[in-house]
């Protein structure tokens, strides 16, 4: 049962209303499709930022390999749809569950160890996945992890490939994710996560089972990443290993750091800024004849500056740290 008041304040409702109108407006613009594409990419990053936030923001564990679930979701859905002819509506939940399972598995060995070990495992895990996908042609069916011709979802016989349809598609996914994450955050579960991130031992004396709650966070965060990956697979139509490099994880981390680790609004804003900034930078850097990858230099500077001067994110005025 969804109550309107539990989702959004009226200001957010207004924002949502305007967002829904965007495709109408861009229909009259020359570059309309391109704008829709940028918006869709931004929404995708916002979804991923929300997902990473569940582990790194809510429980305070540094996840350096979030792109791994993006990869799992993308390839699970991509392979199911392109090679086995599955429908998107079946492939999406399977991808999400697959991702969630790996989230649990990945985190399990680190439950008894300090957060540093978790960071190390997450890093190694995603890099390993990347290399497997790149090298194992038999698994993926193409070199360099190339999977092509991933079809768009069909609804009532219509194939939803057009940019404006994709726009609503990702917007709906984003809103549903936001709803779930918001409700979790403001519940007994969310309070337990917050307690864990601030003082694990004190949290235990409140009856909070650390293993259980951390595992829950791992699974949910991973599932969200996988959902993002599944969407991405049909959005791009062709995917290859190169998209799922380590630096994507760092980019998404940068987004939640910028907005303020642990807060939902912060994750959304950070992702919106960096998601679009990334596009802008990529274009302007190549215009300035600099390598497009050097936008990572700016991201690095953002990370350092934020931790030093505004650890709580650009929105909060206090100096409270993650």
């Amino acid at each position, binding site marked *: 049962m969804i109550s309107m008041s539990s989702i959004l304040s009226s200001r957010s409702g207004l924002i949502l209303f305007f967002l829904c109108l965007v495709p109408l407006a861009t229909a009259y613009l020359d570059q309309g499709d391109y704008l829709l594409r940028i918006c869709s990419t931004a929404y995708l990053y916002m979804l991923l930022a929300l997902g990473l936030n569940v582990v790194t923001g809510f429980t305070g564990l540094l996840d350096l390999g979030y792109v791994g679930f993006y990869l799992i979701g993308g390839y699970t859905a991509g392979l199911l749809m392109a090679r086995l002819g599955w429908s998107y509506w079946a492939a999406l939940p399977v991808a999400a569950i697959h991702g969630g399972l790996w989230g649990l598995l990945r985190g399990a060995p680190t439950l008894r160890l300090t957060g540093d070990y978790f960071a190390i495992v997450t890093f190694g895990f995603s890099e390993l996945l990347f290399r497997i996908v790149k090298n194992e042609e038999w698994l993926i069916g193409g070199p360099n992890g190339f999977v092509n011709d991933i079809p768009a979802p069909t609804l009532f016989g219509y194939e939803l490939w057009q940019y404006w349809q994709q726009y609503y598609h990702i917007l709906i996914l984003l809103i549903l994710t936001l709803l779930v994450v918001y409700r979790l955050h403001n519940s007994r579960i969310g309070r337990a996560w*917050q307690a864990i991130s601030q003082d694990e*031992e004190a949290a235990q004396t409140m*009856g909070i089972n650390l293993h259980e709650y951390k595992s829950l966070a791992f699974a949910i965060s991973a599932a969200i990443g996988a959902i993002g990956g599944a969407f991405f697979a049909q959005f791009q139509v062709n995917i290859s290993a190169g998209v799922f490099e380590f630096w994507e994880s760092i980019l998404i981390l940068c987004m939640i750091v910028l907005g303020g680790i642990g807060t939902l609004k912060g994750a959304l804003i950070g992702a919106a800024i960096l998601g679009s900034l990334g596009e802008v930078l990529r274009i302007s850097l190549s215009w300035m004849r600099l390598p497009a990858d050097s936008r990572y230099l700016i991201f690095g500077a953002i990370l350092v500056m934020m931790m030093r001067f505004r650890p709580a994110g650009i929105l909060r005025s206090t100096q409270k740290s993650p």
Partner: protein
Amino acid sequence: MDIDPLLEITGLTKNFGGVVALAQVDLRVMPGQIASLIGPNGAGKTTLFNCVTGLMAPTTGKISFQQQDIFGTSAHQVAMNGIARTFQNIRLFSEMTVLDNVRIGCHTQSRGYLWSAISRNRAYREEELQITTDAQELLQFVNLENFATQIAGNLSYGDQRRLEIARALATNPKLLLLDEPAAGMNPQETNDLIALIRSIRERNITVFLIEHDMKLVMRISEWITVLNYGQKISQGPPEVVQSDPRVIEAYLGQSAGSNH
């Protein structure tokens, strides 16, 4: 009439590498008591609390709570079983609100399944309402109800201590362990604390505290256990312990005037 002890510790030993923190400690806490654990600094008092609450694994010995063996039980399970504690150096969730701190304490009294949290069904909303009501009642109990929406880290020291007690009470314990609750308090605050501890006992909660403030200990305790260098050197009602030469000698070894 033979009443079973609420907490019974037998032969509890804890070694850290070469250091013996607790050596064959025996003690009992009876239900409904206000009992104290005293001893010079480093005597092993907090270590004992840590072993009982599952934050540390004892080396050997036996710990029973309500006649059930809890040796080696994990910390969160111990809390679920009904033992709550506060910490020597106040470990609140300082970036959360006062009310949320207590609501986290209510964790042991609720279920909050994943699906109900997401769907916000009736069962969930009723449970949340109960949690909030219980938390507010506890804040009233410790006179902090006006601070409910403040950030816990902004409270004064004395208020933070009371908040930590409220949070511990939220877990609905049968045994409350207080680790130096009067540290840093002035005489007026100490009097308030004594009243608070007594009213906690009136709620059928047994209180076991570690303290250095001897006036407080002697006034409030019905039974005192004394540790020195990890060993129990004395026990009994205040009059007995006060005049025990071994206790006096243990304390004279420290700097004079250890009470406030």
